[in-house]
């Protein structure tokens, strides 16, 4: 039961992107299309789950004072694996995500979960925490990239939805990313305020 809680808390209650406001850099930068969003979500989830598991497994061997560098080494290892796999099997996606793939290293979600959760909990809970947070991040990415792809390019999953719809190109550009997340956050606050 506890594991299940760890899993689902990341989806809404502690959604990393919208509630904890972590990992916003890749979140805004790659959310131009749903395909990119899913790619980034899956990559981040993979790194998150693996590093959570490893860190919680070795937490007792790491001296407290140098724990952060140790976490970073673990995380960077998995990021490098992701980078190489992506380069080999999906070069187009790798090009689209650009520098934001290596930057998963400094993604606050990964390090934040390592420090706040994996270093204090057992492997099983950390695994579920990683999966939950990863899915939460991916869902948030799906939401924002869906909105941006629809409004900014008039498409969903790269398919034209409404023929006569004239997309607002700005939504696919950086100002649009900032605008969409601002309005989404405002909308969530509004709902929270109503309750």
């Amino acid at each position, binding site marked *: 039961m506890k594991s299940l809680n760890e899993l689902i808390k990341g989806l809404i209650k502690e959604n990393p992107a919208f509630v904890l406001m972590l990992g916003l850099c890749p979140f805004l930068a790659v959310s131009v299309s749903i395909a990119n969003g899913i790619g980034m979500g899956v990559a981040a989830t993979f790194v998150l789950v693996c590093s959570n598991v490893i860190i919680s497994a070795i937490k007792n061997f790491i001296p407290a004072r140098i724990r952060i560098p140790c976490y970073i080494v673990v995380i960077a290892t998995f990021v490098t694996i992701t980078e190489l796999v992506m380069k080999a099997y999906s070069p187009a996606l790798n090009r689209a995500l650009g520098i934001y793939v290596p930057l998963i290293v400094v993604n606050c979600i990964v390090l934040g979960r390592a420090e706040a959760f994996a270093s204090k909990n057992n492997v099983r809970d950390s695994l579920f925490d990683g999966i939950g947070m990863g899915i939460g991040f991916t869902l948030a990415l799906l939401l924002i990239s869906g909105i941006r792809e629809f409004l900014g390019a008039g498409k969903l999953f790269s398919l034209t939805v409404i023929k006569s719809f*004239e997309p*607002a*190109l*700005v*939504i696919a*550009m950086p*100002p649009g990313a900032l*605008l969409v997340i601002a309005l989404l956050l405002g909308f969530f606050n509004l709902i929270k305020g109503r309750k």
Partner: protein
Amino acid sequence: MNNRLTVLSSPHLHSRESVPRIMWTVVACLIPAGAAGVYLFGMPALRTIAWAAVAAVACEWIIQKLTKKKITVTDGSAIMTGLLLAYNLPADVPFWIPVLGSIFAVAIAKHAFGGLGQNIFNPALVGRAFLVASWPKYLTVFTKPGYDAVTSATPLAMLKEGRLAEQIPYLDLFLGRRAGCIGEVCIVALAAGALFLLIRGYISWHIPASFIATVGIFTYIFGPKGFFTGDWLFHILSGGLILGAFFMATDYVTSPPTARGHLIFGVGCGILTSVIRLWGGYPEGVSYAILMMNAATPLIDRFTKPRIYGTAKRKKATGTGV
């Protein structure tokens, strides 16, 4: 609210001026330029202006109704935003362009910040920047004044693409016989409205003068055939410089309050405008320049804050923890 509100020391002057009075005066002073635009570009211009103004007012009314605030649509500020936005658009755009622009301007650039008096950026310009970035194909097609409504590039765009075959007579630029946005083309009409505002003291000369002078000097120095060969008069008369300098850069809310701040603001606008015109990707930079200086206004305010009488001038700006 907390007590961070700074009230300057007395004397506080009382004046008969009120927000609605100022706003409606400015709106009235904008009418000649709009009328000239309608005369030059025909009915499409009138339609665009009407859509923008109506949408701005309606959007303000709806937002104030929904948020249960005092309804202040009659203070003239919403209609001014709508007018200024329309003046910055080509005449022949689909109706939803001015409507969406007005909604964006009023909702995002004004009411998200708490309404009139608290917005950081000029709402009309935010609306325009949003439209240009979103639907560039509608915002960069201009019709030449006249009955046959041929599409044509603006003089600045022709200059940028090196297609300015022959000199456009200054008189044509002055009267507005050129392609361009609805409210920016007729310099005479703009000048008439601006003159009234200046004489009655609604706007001070500092921002427009420093803005226009900076553009003139800058474009003269960095001319096409080497230093000091620029056609400064052309640069002053074309584009949205006159409209921007007198009616948008001088907005009370989004520009600094002191004379020194005005000068910094105007010179900054002038430099940014010229840099974008001469080397940027867009032919015209007035609206972006004003927006950037809007963003810098709180910073300018910090450094030009009037010293309270009787207090010593601080020796050193220690990171200015004012």
